[in-house]
């Protein structure tokens, strides 16, 4: 035996376990759930990154200069980003109206 790690024989496979792998859109484009859309006004943004930190869905993304933008394909419209923004730079706009 060489090394500290014990030699473990590869177990014989009797059946193949159903293994799923992490991937986006495991439940489809969840942006369709949204009733209100977050709109970021970059002139008020102070790059505190709170919206990026608190977003449960990882749909607020950071640019190279740390300004943020929203991935509308998957944003569920919960509004946490607008609630935690210290400068009120994010507005929740109802979906379906004029853009």
């Amino acid at each position, binding site marked *: 035996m060489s090394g500290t790690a014990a030699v473990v024989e590869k177990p014989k496979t009797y059946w193949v376990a159903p293994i*799923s792998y992490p991937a986006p859109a*495991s*439940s489809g484009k969840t942006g369709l759930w949204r009733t209100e859309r977050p709109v970021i006004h970059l002139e008020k943004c102070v790059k505190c990154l709170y919206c990026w930190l608190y977003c*449960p869905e990882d749909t607020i993304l950071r640019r190279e200069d740390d300004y943020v933008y929203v991935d509308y394909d998957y944003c569920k419209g919960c509004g*946490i980003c607008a609630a935690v923004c210290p400068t009120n730079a994010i507005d929740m706009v109802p979906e379906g109206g004029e853009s």
Partner: protein
Amino acid sequence: MPLRLADLPRRRYGSPGNAACPGCPETMGLRYVKMALGDNVVLVIPAGCSSVIQGIRPKSGINFPILNIVFASAASAASGMSSAFEMLGQDVKVVVWAGDGGTADIGFQALSGAAERNDDIIYICVDNEAYMNTGIQRSGLTPYGAWTTTTWTGKTEPKKPLPFIVLAHNVPYVATATVGYPQDFIEKLRKAATIRGFKYIHLHAPCPVGWRFDPSLTAKIAQLAVQTGAFILFEYENGRFRLSPYSGMYRDPKRRVPLEEYLKLQGRFQTVLKDPQKLEMLRAEIDEMWRWALLLEKGMASPELKK
């Protein structure tokens, strides 16, 4: 060392497009686990909302390798995995991500056993204060007076003081955290990762569906729970107990935000708000928790002096 958000790498920590409800605290918490511990992590998940968030094969909605296991054996399975990784010589952190029912009620004997054996795992209890996945039934960690589908007029028993119970097992690290203060949670996770032995972190996670509030208020309610003193943030490390900075300033009840501010945002506490007697009982429950915390702080502040 305080955490700077701008230093965290620009990458996707979570997995967008999963099956979680809007405003879910569990997907928030899982992102912070990824931010804190990186990619060398394996999750063990007993039945709960996290099993549902993964979605159906072939895609998984949680950005970690996961072992899904039955309620009563999450901590035991993690102990075995931790030993196996040690034998293989791999540096992989085994994290149990269990709900409050899977920790305090059904999975408690496995948790207690793993704590007694001092197995090298991180146990995170996501405390959303009821069995949310199966339809908001009461659990041992539901606070006094809270509405659930099995306690229509409010729960009549107080909340089980689970962090103190695990602390009494004399494990190397016990901490409480909340999704309202992610920097605090990330720092505690990073500290836990450096310690060998059983680590327990109690994560307070307000659930918009079960607590009956607007999804946009998840972070605000988690912060209010700390500011009103309803949830205490502390850290217990190698025999030393201390309140975390976010909770330390609320030792004095006069400096706390009024409890009604926290209760009135949640639909589940409406019976408590209408009945002054129930409100007093809830206050007494919170005061009891604070009495324990302050006693431990006083008694376990400096173990070096006692030696």
